[in-house]
């Protein structure tokens, strides 16, 4: 019996969904390692270079997929004791279990992928209503207030740019994961502070790390279920 590749893949998807376990991609950031070099911004540099993220001088219109902010801004003023006050923490899209942005998007331009839980972004469909930006409790999303190209010094043709009028954010490097790689930030981090993997797989590095050490997340009380964990 001959079967086309397309049909085979569809069958495989059905079978995997029935019997396979979906992955839950998560990231664990060891802040102690990150703080060995507090001025380091290699993760942001690598990400923004790989994805043609423009560098916009006006902070009101900046576009950032991963960035650093002070501990008290990331986790709330009330949670920053003297040991960590002012320390820079890498922040990015948390690819939440229950993403508010996905709930509110009126066109389905952002959605949570079944197979691995990545919160994806379809810039072809986005109408630029910015409802997702209003909904995100973490400020993880950026909007193209104008054409980004003038703000790109070099363009990497391997990845598209975006147009004015659409929202963008970290994608956990879906294009790299598709080739068996890891997110750019994780790969480049000099002290190897970032660990990435399938949190639902008990044998993965990230799952074992979360088993061994206490980790905390941003605004867990909101029920969004963020998948970026911080270790101290």
């Amino acid at each position: 019996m001959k079967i086309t590749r397309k049909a085979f893949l569809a069958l495989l998807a059905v079978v995997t969904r029935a019997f396979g376990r979906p992955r839950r991609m998560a990231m664990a950031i060891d802040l102690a390692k990150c703080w060995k070099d507090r001025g380091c911004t290699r993760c942001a540099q690598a990400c923004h270079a790989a994805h043609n993220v423009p560098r916009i001088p006006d902070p009101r219109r900046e576009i950032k997929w991963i960035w650093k902010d002070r501990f008290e801004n990331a986790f709330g003023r009330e949670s920053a004791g003297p040991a960590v006050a002012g320390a820079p923490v890498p922040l990015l899209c948390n690819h939440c279990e229950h993403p508010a942005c996905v709930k509110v998007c009126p066109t389905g331009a952002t959605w949570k992928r079944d197979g691995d839980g990545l919160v994806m972004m379809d810039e072809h469909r986005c109408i630029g209503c910015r409802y997702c930006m209003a909904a995100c409790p973490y400020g993880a999303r950026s909007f193209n207030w104008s054409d980004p190209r003038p703000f790109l010094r070099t363009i990497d043709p391997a990845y598209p740019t975006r147009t004015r009028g659409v929202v963008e954010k970290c994608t956990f490097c879906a294009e790299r994961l598709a080739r068996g790689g890891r997110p750019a930030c994780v790969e480049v981090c000099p002290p190897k502070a970032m660990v990435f993997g399938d949190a639902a797989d008990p044998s993965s590095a990230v799952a074992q790390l979360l088993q061994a050490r206490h980790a905390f997340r941003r605004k867990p009380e909101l029920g969004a279920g963020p998948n970026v964990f911080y270790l101290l």
Partner: protein
Amino acid sequence: MTVLAKAMSGSRAYRWWMAALAAAIVAGVLLWLRQWNRGLVLTGMSRDVAWGLYVGQFTFFVGVAASAVTVVLPYYLHAWKAFGRVVILGELLAIASIVVSLLFIVVDMGRPDRLLNVLLYPSPSSLMFWDMLALMGYLALNGIVARAVLAAEIDGAPPATWTRAIMLISIPWAVSIHTLTAFLYAGLAGRPFWLTAAMAPRFLASAFAAGPALLILLCRAFRYDAGEEALRKLSLVMTYAMTANVFLALMEVFTAFYSGIPEHAAHYSPWTWLSGGFALAALAMALGRSRYAPAAVFASLAIDKGVVLIPAGFIPSPAGAVTPYLPTAVELGIVLAIWSVGALLVTVLFRIAIAARAAESSLTGFDGPSTLHSTPRAVAEREM
């Protein structure tokens, strides 16, 4: 001349008014084209304050549209004849308000050319999807009924019975459009300023204050005699609704400040207090039955809901950053243009309604159809 033609001709003041509106609209279209070309960078919004004046004005005018229920419900559900001369105006105001609020959405979008995606890819979990459907349905309801009622009036006949059924449907529909709009904000876990069950009741209360206030002002502006009792009752609705609105707002203040949760209180800026103060003053004027109360109530709510509420939800940001929001000239020009579209619609539609009603009442009276020779259309055509 037909009734429509009669309605469109008028004094010099009227012609200047229409010319000014047209000029504002043309300017706004040009500004919007510029904004589409260069992007929303031409506005005062930012990464932290993703929504500003456009969404605020959208919110406010959905409320004004919903307020038609304050005249529709007594008249259609409780046969309150006193509102007989004002119901049609409420419906026409609702039509103009929905058009205005939809325009505010269109100019706020980063990619308005992809507008149809909302319908092509329905997202039932998104309140914006449902709100768009509800608004368009409400526009259709009011449009269909207003046209039927006006046409019947011009012919000197009572409106068809199905119009009553549709107007009864529009009562819960009106409540739903503004409740859905409130849900847009009240369901966001990440925005503590909006995350309150009081959002929808506050929206309805402020809408039921702003709408009647505007109706009173428009009756004065058009020198239209809606009837002593109707105006008194409209003023009463406005006052009670404004009281409820201010009361609910004060409840919010209590919860935010007594609980002591820093994130909740942080959203109360000098602008919030200023607009709240204005609302209190307007309420005082309404309670004191001042002649200027409708203008004060309308203006204070246009500011509180249409200007302050939305940016305040974003300041401070989830990370505690305070990014001030100030509308730019482009933004203000586009807002003015959309207001002008609303004013144009109100002017034309009200004049038609008033002309139809005037021709009608100069004959045998409202009850029972007049003879063919004395219908408003026949009279108007004879005068031609």
